[in-house]
């Protein structure tokens, strides 16, 4: 466990350096638009302001500030600092992501279990269909369909707004489809495996009811692969999805993730990547910890 905690900052440092290098080798200037050229003096003034005259002074300036003050500096293309941008966008992405994650796990496990229990039946076929659609349907299609159906055709929800609890629903569902499909498939496969194992047969032979066996014995064993998938799934949903945010106009982090790169906003790229990495690493750590909670046989101290 201790070793993992030491790895954490090391991995972050490596990610920082690689990202930093990538932001300097991509062409273009964050201070220039497509059509109009800005005078050399103006670019120079801007670069000095942001310590972006050369990679060395930039590298010397920023990591130190990030470590000592937790300050990612000014965004090169916005009136808001990187911290302010992340501070505004991250909570929104986290709320939306957690909502999607809850839907995905709840529905995914239910679908997968039903499919395994009624193997070969209609429910199995249905759940497989849902999983297939969830995995293969691009999120911009799903998001678009949801938007047109529930905001335009039947205006149950207000379109593209943020600030009310109901505004979570449609983007949350759109975001949950892919992880839900994965969870359903993982659960189904693991469940089938467990259902055919000896201890299940023994439990049934001893007279335990079918539902009791499924809920208390099988699910618990079948859920491990799902839990390990939750780590990366959480990191992806929590940091927001560019597509879903674009379609539903959700002011989350995913848009900055893509847009900072197109704008070559070096400080913002670094900030967003570091936050994303920290979340990903944290969730992987949490997943490892939760193994021990679910399955007493796993002991992390060994």
């Amino acid at each position, binding site marked *: 466990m201790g070793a993992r905690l030491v790895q954490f900052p090391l991995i972050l440092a490596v990610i920082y350096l690689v990202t930093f290098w990538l932001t300097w080798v991509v062409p*273009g200037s964050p201070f220039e638009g497509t059509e109009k*050229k*800005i005078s050399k*003096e103006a670019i120079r003034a801007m670069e000095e302001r942001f310590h972006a005259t050369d990679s060395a002074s930039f590298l010397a300036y920023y990591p130190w500030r990030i470590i000592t003050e937790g300050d990612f500096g000014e965004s090169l293309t916005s009136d808001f600092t990187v911290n302010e941008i992340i501070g505004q966008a991250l909570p929104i992405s*986290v709320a939306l992501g957690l909502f999607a994650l809850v839907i995905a796990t709840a529905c995914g496990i239910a679908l997968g279990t039903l499919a395994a229990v009624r193997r070969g039946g209609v429910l199995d076929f249905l759940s497989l269909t849902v999983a297939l659609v969830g995995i293969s349907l691009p999120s911009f299609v799903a998001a678009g369909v949801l938007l047109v159906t529930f905001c335009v055709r039947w205006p149950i929800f207000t*379109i593209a707004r943020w*600030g009310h609890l109901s505004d979570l629903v449609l983007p949350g569902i759109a975001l949950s489809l892919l992880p839900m499909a994965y969870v359903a498939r993982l659960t189904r496969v693991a469940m089938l495996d467990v259902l055919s194992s000896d201890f299940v047969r023994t439990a049934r032979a001893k007279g335990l009811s079918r539902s009791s066996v499924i809920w*208390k014995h099988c699910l618990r064993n079948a859920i491990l692969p799902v839990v390990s998938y939750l780590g990366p799934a959480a990191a992806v949903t929590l940091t927001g999805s560019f597509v879903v945010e674009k*379609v539903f*106009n959700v002011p989350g982090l995913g848009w900055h993730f893509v847009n900072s790169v197109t704008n070559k906003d070096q400080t913002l790229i670094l900030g967003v990547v570091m936050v994303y990495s920290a979340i990903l690493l944290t969730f992987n750590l949490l997943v490892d910890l939760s193994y021990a909670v679910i399955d007493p046989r796993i002991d992390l101290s060994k």
Partner: protein
Amino acid sequence: MVYHLRAMARLLVIPLVLLALLGGAVIWSGAMGSRDAGADFVFVNRGDIKTLDPNSISWLQDIRVAYGLWEGLCTLEPKAGDPDELVVVNGAAERIDVSDDATVYTFHLRPDGRWTNGDPVVAGDFVFAWRRMLEEPADYTYLHYYIKGAREYQQAYAARVEAVRANGATTQPAADYATVGVTALDRLTLRVTLNHPVTFFRDLVAFPPFFPLHAGSMKSFRVTDKATGHVTYRKAFTHPPHLVGNGPFRLAEWVLRKRLRLAASEHYWDRARVKSRVVDVLSFQDPQTSYLKYETDDVDWLAEVANDTAAELKKRGRKDVHTFPGFGTYFYSINCQDKLPGGAANPLRDARVRRALALAVDRKPLVDKIGLIGQPPATSFVPPGLFAGYPEPQAPGYEPDTARRLLAEAGYPGGKGLPIISLIYNTEGDHVLYAQNVAKQWGDVLGVRITLEGLENKKFATRLHDKDYAIARASWIGDYPDVSTFTDKYLSDSDNNDSGWVNKAYDDLCARAAREANATERLKLLGQAEQILLDEMPIVPVFHYVNAYLIREGVKGVPLDPRNQVMLKFVQGRSREGGRR
């Protein structure tokens, strides 16, 4: 049994933790926000606001909001009788005296001019902002170069900062701002001396780069470089509640990518004529979503409508869709330098080849099939119909026979002997469609072989500005309402002359026009200059832009302005019985 319960509890930990986290996050994100009072006018801006620092404002969406927050010495106003046309009128200045040689402007500020915090607007506020523009230059600093000594001061100032930074100290004296032709004669009088007559100077001082700034409110955001004494400001001064403007509105709220809210200023001198109390500015990333928002929700004006949507709505006979001429031209820029990137001789340096390319493009099918909203095919660089009194020279249109003859004269009959020419474009919007069609036409008519190279925006901009291309997709949208905002682009020493085209006669005509005080003469000279440009064809014009708006019926004060400007002071939403939702 006890073990059993504990096991169940352990199993429930994860979902419970997840749900608790979700609850916390929802509160944290403000998704539980209470409903707030409605706005009188809601519009969807072109995109997210980039900056509200007048020093660096250059994007259309920022300029629109800036006109609501500040007011220049002059300002724009819908013309009486023709509310779709914006005319320049006195703004923060009550009276303007112009010297006989039209180079000295004396602005008398109105005594009742007030900042949003109640402070009086004084001449020093303009000096402060205009000086900052030179010391901390940005996109539009060059517009200040019309002012005597401005360019020299900017260079001297930058050189000194640079010298101190390089050597630690310098014997070079500090640049003297007294050499610049901007002086506050007293509290309410500002004198501006120009290098030469500028017929559109009133229009210029209405533009955001000439807005005043409230120095006092920016003080706490000052960052002074210890070595050089160079002063910059943290951008946070533009956030509410810090931002202090002198315009009809104050900035009440700014949440990135969600909303800007403007509330009428109680101190603005002309507050009686401000039509809306609260204006909401929304931004969308997806044009389809913003259109659906307009269709299903309470939006008064959608400022950016996709061409296909606008065309479809027109076909359906909708009354709220408006298309009108824009302030720009879409064209292909041709590299006119002697050598192509890579060092090969450039066949395009021959004007006959360039003219052949221009004559071989049939623009009508392009605008009909791709443009969709009636963009006029372009045979000139300056869009027609925008400048009264401008001669509007035109190049010939589609003449395939002449084109083939010219190419043969240049030594490439049927395209023989020409290398494969590369055409670069940025992979955004319809650029690829235009490029494919134009390339096909060039191949069919002239036998010229073109390779298409789609590039990401930044890469494209770098290649275009470095003249690292043979033919490039390009467009130009004018900045201020004068022909020179177009013709200046192709001056030999212009930063924006991406074609590398150099023509002494063109430069001379533009320089003579700049010094000409007679407006008619001046336009005639600029017309002659454009004629040279069209004879030499460093560009192949394709079409002139057309803008599309969706304006809800009953909404007032949104002019169909070619430059897409709007004065928020005059906007008025349709009447809403029973208030807004």
